[in-house]
């Protein structure tokens, strides 16, 4: 049996994790409803069903680590310390957000705080994390890790391969977390790869791998944290495969009617939030009252932030300097001027 302290620590983490999952779910739901009301300029992409894994990624990291979240990582971002307002500002394109209305929705980050801003091209963030870790190595910053999120579909990109192999050659503390949600947009696993499990890839890169049920919060916390610890301790890159199901469309424009009904009713189709709730209840860590209270608090926080951001001005094209260079002396004259 684990010592009492450790049990309490784990419990606390799972409680914290659950609250973050709840917040993420409700924030995502809010984005979906704003989308339906036509208040969002582009697409909306949710993490529904993936919050347990995502929150585990965010909570396994500590300040000084590097994180490259992907589109379904609302929970992980919040867990790593993202301010609610940054998420909302980015979705609403506020000029005050970290992306200043230049980029939107899930394409946000704060590199100086260790959160890289994803580009859309799948797989492309892995090598960027590697580079950040190389910088840490060069500057003697030891003990940090970098975690990159990924989907099952993204494992087919050349960038995935080059990035993981690069990390392996340099033996970098990269944790590559694959949310295998059975689909890449409409494309099922069997049109994406032919290996029985993506875990089989680990050996081909000479890295450690672990696979688990990503609908289970405690499992997720345990396994992701384990991988992060191994990387931190010098064990080299870690390939983490979590099996789960996306419980929403690819984006909110998509009804996901292509998702196999059998999968939905199978174990991977469980709602991780419900699973976590049940776990916490059974462990006596959650009462209906607390849940209601947490929900209310989350709802209030979200409503407040959304209301605030909706009052904020959009970016002003006349205030923009319309240049993509940091070196202002090299900016080209626009034609015609």
């Amino acid at each position: 049996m684990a010592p009492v302290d450790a049990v309490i620590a784990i419990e606390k983490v799972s409680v914290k994790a659950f609250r973050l999952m709840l917040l993420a779910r409700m924030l995502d739901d809010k984005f979906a409803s704003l989308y339906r009301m036509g208040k969002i300029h582009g697409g909306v992409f949710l993490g529904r069903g993936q919050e347990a894994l995502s929150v585990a990624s965010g909570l396994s990291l500590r300040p000084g680590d590097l994180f490259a979240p992907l589109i379904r990582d609302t929970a992980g971002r919040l867990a790593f310390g993202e301010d609610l307002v940054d998420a909302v500002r980015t979705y609403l394109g506020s000029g005050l957000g970290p992306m200043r209305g230049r980029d939107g929705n899930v394409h946000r980050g704060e590199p100086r705080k260790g959160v890289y801003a994803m580009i859309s091209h799948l797989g492309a963030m892995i090598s960027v994390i590697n580079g950040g870790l190389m910088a840490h190595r060069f500057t003697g910053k030891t003990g940090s890790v970098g975690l990159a999120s990924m989907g099952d579909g993204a494992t087919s990109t050349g960038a995935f391969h080059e990035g993981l192999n690069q990390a392996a050659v340099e033996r970098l503390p990269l944790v590559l977390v694959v949310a295998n949600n059975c689909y890449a947009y409409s494309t099922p696993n069997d049109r994406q790869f032919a290996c029985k499990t993506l875990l089989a890839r680990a050996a081909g890169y000479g890295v450690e791998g672990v696979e688990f049920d990503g609908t289970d919060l405690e499992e997720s916390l345990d396994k992701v944290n384990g991988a992060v610890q191994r990387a931190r301790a010098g064990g080299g890159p870690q390939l983490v495969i979590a099996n789960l199901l996306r419980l929403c469309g690819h984006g909110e424009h998509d009804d996901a009617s292509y998702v196999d009904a059998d999968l939905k009713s199978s174990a991977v189709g469980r709602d991780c939030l419900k699973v976590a709730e049940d776990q916490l209840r059974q462990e006596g860590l959650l009462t209906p009252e607390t849940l209601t209270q947490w929900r209310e608090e989350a709802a209030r926080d979200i409503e407040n932030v959304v209301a605030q951001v909706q009052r904020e001005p959009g970016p002003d094209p006349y205030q923009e300097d319309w240049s993509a260079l940091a070196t202002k002396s090299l900016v080209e004259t626009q034609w015609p001027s």
Partner: protein
Amino acid sequence: MVITYLEAIRAAQAAALRDDKRVFIYGQDVGVFGGAFKATKNLAQEFPGRVIDSPISEDAMIGMAVGAAVSGMRPILEVQFADFSTLALNQIVNQAATHYWRTGVPCPITVRLPSGGTSGSGPFHSQSMEALYAHYPGLVVMAPATVQDAYEMLLAAVAIDDPVIYCEHKYLYYHLKADDLFTEPPVPVGKARIARAGRDLSIVTYSAMVHEALAVADELAKEKIEIEVVDLRTVKPLDTDSIVASVSRTGRLLCVGEAFPWGGVTAEVVARVASEGFNLLDAPPMRLNAKDTPVPYHPNLWAAHRPTARSIADAARRLLRM
């Protein structure tokens, strides 16, 4: 009957699959799902085994198309957004585009690139990449602006023995409608089209910007200014003769494109007119492009980033005063 630009693209693919056994379609989610934009809706069902979902592997998608084409097929590729074709660039410009010249064996592939900006799409789902492909030898680069061209040029792309980059504009998908697929006499591939005749100023453009230019022509017509709008249709080959002929009628050239400002179609058009039609010009040729930053997400910024009817009209007025 009303048919959209997107439906025309779907119809052309259906016709190609129906009429030519060598045709197949390959791309992410193009199968039963019908594609991210539904450009292949029902085609997998209608043509079993010939509309195939690919893994998220843009490089391998084009490579596979090249191998199939060189061995007698006529693949149509859908890249989910043009922006992701950066990952296929090598196979396009170095494998497909050089193949005929190096070996004498043609490589007839058609690469569909959903291109151009729409509100809220941001830096990575809005790009216009025709300049990259047109720069490399060995490719035909199309950018249809009308429903009829969307249909006819896609069929032509499949029929042509060379690799074709077919830039279809996402904004036109649903916004552009026609009463019929065939409303005008067909124009051969490689020829520009006079979308509207006029004698005061030529606006040379392509793809979605043709419609902005036409709106400007409408507006300026109220002031008795006659704008001629030239729709390039293919940016490579570039129909220099028709462009120069238009400038010879109007004496003034405004070239408009939605792509980034350095290089690209507008530079090539203006450079050619300056070289070949210098004495026809009554005023300096003018260009209007997007701004030199990534394509912004917020509609306020986006509208200021790319040319619009308003900024085109401003430029036209300025040019007319010169």
